[in-house]
């Protein structure tokens, strides 16, 4: 099926998730849709699969304009999306789950359906047991099942959103070979959404690259990785001269730290960070950076190893104990983790302060809040509640709540959603804290930010801190290769 997207636009408030994107896809080919986190790939595919409507623009299937009110309508027209996290209902058996999505007659015809499913499963070399219950299956098996559902639903176009996240190598091979079969032998159209270069190189015939909501380039595959990296991340930014800073004593030491979570195991982290140093954690989302930050903060207990802050062993210490010792942690979700919607700025200040009196002196607290919000240029009153602030101001409030004299500051996506000027300003504030001997560890999906702001960069992939490099000695495309898991 020939698919064409014409001038697709989708804005979320001020954020242009898709800004005038036009692509044309031929049947029988596998397309890669590349871009860093937040580039607009998922948004575009959700529009194509009827999950959310575009603000403007057209979708043409075989040169006819279509409009999907729901994913089911899109599947009816032949467009099937395989989500990152398959959206089935776990406690159902596979057959029930399958019937749920497809059968709209009153009586359920199990026999035909079983035959149908078995036929598809053998044709593509899948292994899923259709009599099993969904919650007993691995992510990879659920994914195969979802594919079976799409195939039986008559899909002509398959959209795969980061399909290899969380599945085994064998399952990936099965998936890729079935994709090749579907495209090259059966003339289906495949779109692979990914930010992993080697996957795109391995599977795709052609790649589109998005950056900040715009289609910035395309290329037939194979092509040199450099070309794709440059399109994905833009020109290598000119780095501003940063004042050199004399690093102090070790502020944070990680010694053989192993962390085990249900999603990912992070193993064998060894890192020494000095007072006044800025460390950027680079890697794809979910490669272990966030888990490490939470471990240092005391939110996750490491399985083994040591976390030492200013010579004090905080390995077993609770979040609150670490916090009192001078380890501050700012999570990415502002109103979920960090701010309390209906509390005023003054109330936030009071909670965050290191010392408290039994009774609250409201006028004094208001005054302290006023001077703090002035310093951090938060647009709001001491009485404003956190949810009345704009996103950028919420972020500023989060920083304003950091007390002076901290030993380590841990930041998740510190400038996500901020404009360039606020970003610079936030970093200025952070650099100023070096004078206190504060070490900064931050993670970001923005490679430019990591390169520009860090002294050293720790690269993560799949739970392994694969290397630590000096920020001044790498370029953006080298870093892009490293986080893509390439040497």
């Amino acid at each position, binding site marked *: 099926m020939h698919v064409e997207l014409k001038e697709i636009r989708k804005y979320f408030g001020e954020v242009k998730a898709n800004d005038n994107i036009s692509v044309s896809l031929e049947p029988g080919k596998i397309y890669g849709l590349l871009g860093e986190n937040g580039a607009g790939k998922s948004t575009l595919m959700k529009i194509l699969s009827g999950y959310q409507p575009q603000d403007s623009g057209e979708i043409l299937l075989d040169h006819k304009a279509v409009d999907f009110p729901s994913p089911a309508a899109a599947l009816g027209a032949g467009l099937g999306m395989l989500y990152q996290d398959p959206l089935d209902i776990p406690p159902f058996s596979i057959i029930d789950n399958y019937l749920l999505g497809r059968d709209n007659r009153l009586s359920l015809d199990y026999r035909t359906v079983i035959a149908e499913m078995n036929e598809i499963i053998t044709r593509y070399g899948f292994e899923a047991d259709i009599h099993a219950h969904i919650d007993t299956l691995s992510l990879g098996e659920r994914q195969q099942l979802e594919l079976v559902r799409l195939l039986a639903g008559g899909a002509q176009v398959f959209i795969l959103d980061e399909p290899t996240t969380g599945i085994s190598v064998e399952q990936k091979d099965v998936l890729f070979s079935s994709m090749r079969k579907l495209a090259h032998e059966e003339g289906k159209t495949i779109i692979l959404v990914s930010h992993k270069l080697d996957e795109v190189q391995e599977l795709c015939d052609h790649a589109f690259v998005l950056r900040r909501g715009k289609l910035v380039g395309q290329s037939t595959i194979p092509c040199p990785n450099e070309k794709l990296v440059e399109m994905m991340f833009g020109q290598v930014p000119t780095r501003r001269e940063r004042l050199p800073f004399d690093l102090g004593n070790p502020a944070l030491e990680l010694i053989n730290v192993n962390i085990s979570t249900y999603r990912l195991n992070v193993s064998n982290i060894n890192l020494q960070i000095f007072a006044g140093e800025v460390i950027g954690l680079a890697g794809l989302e979910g490669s272990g950076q966030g888990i490490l930050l939470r471990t240092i903060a005391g939110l996750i207990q490491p399985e083994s190893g040591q976390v030492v802050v200013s010579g004090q062993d905080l390995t077993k210490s609770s979040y609150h104990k670490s916090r009192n010792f001078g380890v501050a942690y700012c999570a990415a979700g502002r109103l*979920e983790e960090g701010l*309390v919607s209906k509390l005023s700025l003054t109330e936030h200040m009071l909670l965050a302060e290191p010392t408290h009196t039994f009774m609250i002196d*409201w006028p004094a607290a208001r005054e302290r809040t006023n001077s703090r919000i002035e310093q951090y240029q938060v647009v*709001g009153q001491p009485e404003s509640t956190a949810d009345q602030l704009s996103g950028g101001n919420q972020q500023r409030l989060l920083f304003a*709540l950091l007390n002076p004299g901290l030993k380590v500051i841990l930041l998740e996506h510190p400038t996500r959603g901020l404009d360039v000027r606020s970003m610079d300003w936030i970093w200025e504030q952070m650099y100023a804290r070096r004078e206190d001997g504060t070490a900064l560890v931050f993670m970001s999906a923005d490679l430019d930010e990591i390169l520009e702001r860090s002294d050293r960069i720790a690269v993560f992939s799949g739970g392994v801190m694969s290397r630590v490099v000096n920020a001044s000695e790498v370029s953006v495309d080298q870093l892009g290769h490293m986080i893509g898991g390439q040497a």
Partner: protein
Amino acid sequence: MILPRWAERFWPVVPIIGALLFIIALLFLFGADPLESLNIMFLKPFENQAKMLSVMAFWVPLTLCALGLLVTFTGGLWNIGVEGQMILGSLGASWIALTVDAPAFVLIFLEIIVAMLAGALWGALTGFLKTHGKVHEIFGGLALNNLASMLSLYLIAGPWQPPEGGSFRGTPPFQEAALLPRFAESRFSPISFVLTILAIGLVFFALNNSFWGLKLKALGKNARSAFLLGVSSERETIYAMMFCGALAGLGGAVRVLSWFDSLRQNISGGIGYLAILVVMLAAYRLLLVPFISFFFSLVLNGSLTLQLKTQLHSSLGGILTGVMVLFILLFGEASKLGFRKEVEKDE
């Protein structure tokens, strides 16, 4: 449609009026004269000192429980266990009243302290089950309510039974020195009234001016963020439950020491559950609680009179309060009816 500030302030009255209209319709349905009925329920008690004192005697424990609940609700805790906490308070007070021999002021002081401690203990237990056993406070509270009720039945029928032989009705009447001094011939005790007024002040300061109150508020609105801002959810949860338990326990003491003069079965009379409705109807606003609580006492007492004078069943009062709470939940928030609040934007 934008609602002005003043109208928003008075919004809690709207469901009350709605419920009144509902009751009037109901009275019509039963062929009763609504005006006369409402007159008996709401206005007559004001003309009669004995009735008024009876309303106030009921108001005291109800308000005490509601005040305690305000604290737990602020912390986001559904303290259904307030009923059991009240029963424990009455057991604590009864224990002192039945076993200690001392001058009246010592006895009363001891009774009140032990009742508050017992209630706090029961509250702490629910809190502890939540923080350390992952038992939701609703289920823990319900279980402990039952347990408290069983415990009181056992004590009445067993160790504390009257000398003439065990019954499930109650213990023997307490010694005179153990009882709260009462006003005139009523069951209303001025001491309990003063304690309730003090409790209102205490809760007001705890919620508005203490750092603890702020921590509870943060916890109730977003436990995760509050934790990250340094609030220890486990400790504050247990403290809040204890605080509420102590006030409910005091309410329980007032029940046995001035209302019944002995420990009876079903000592709480559902006041704990009723207090939950009071707090909901007051929309969690402290200054409304004493008034809503008074209104409830009035209605429930009035419906008893109503049954005597007309043939209408006294459950009418229960229906009225129940309907009111439902109405409050249905459209207690102006926004649900399509009104928008007046909010200044600082963009």
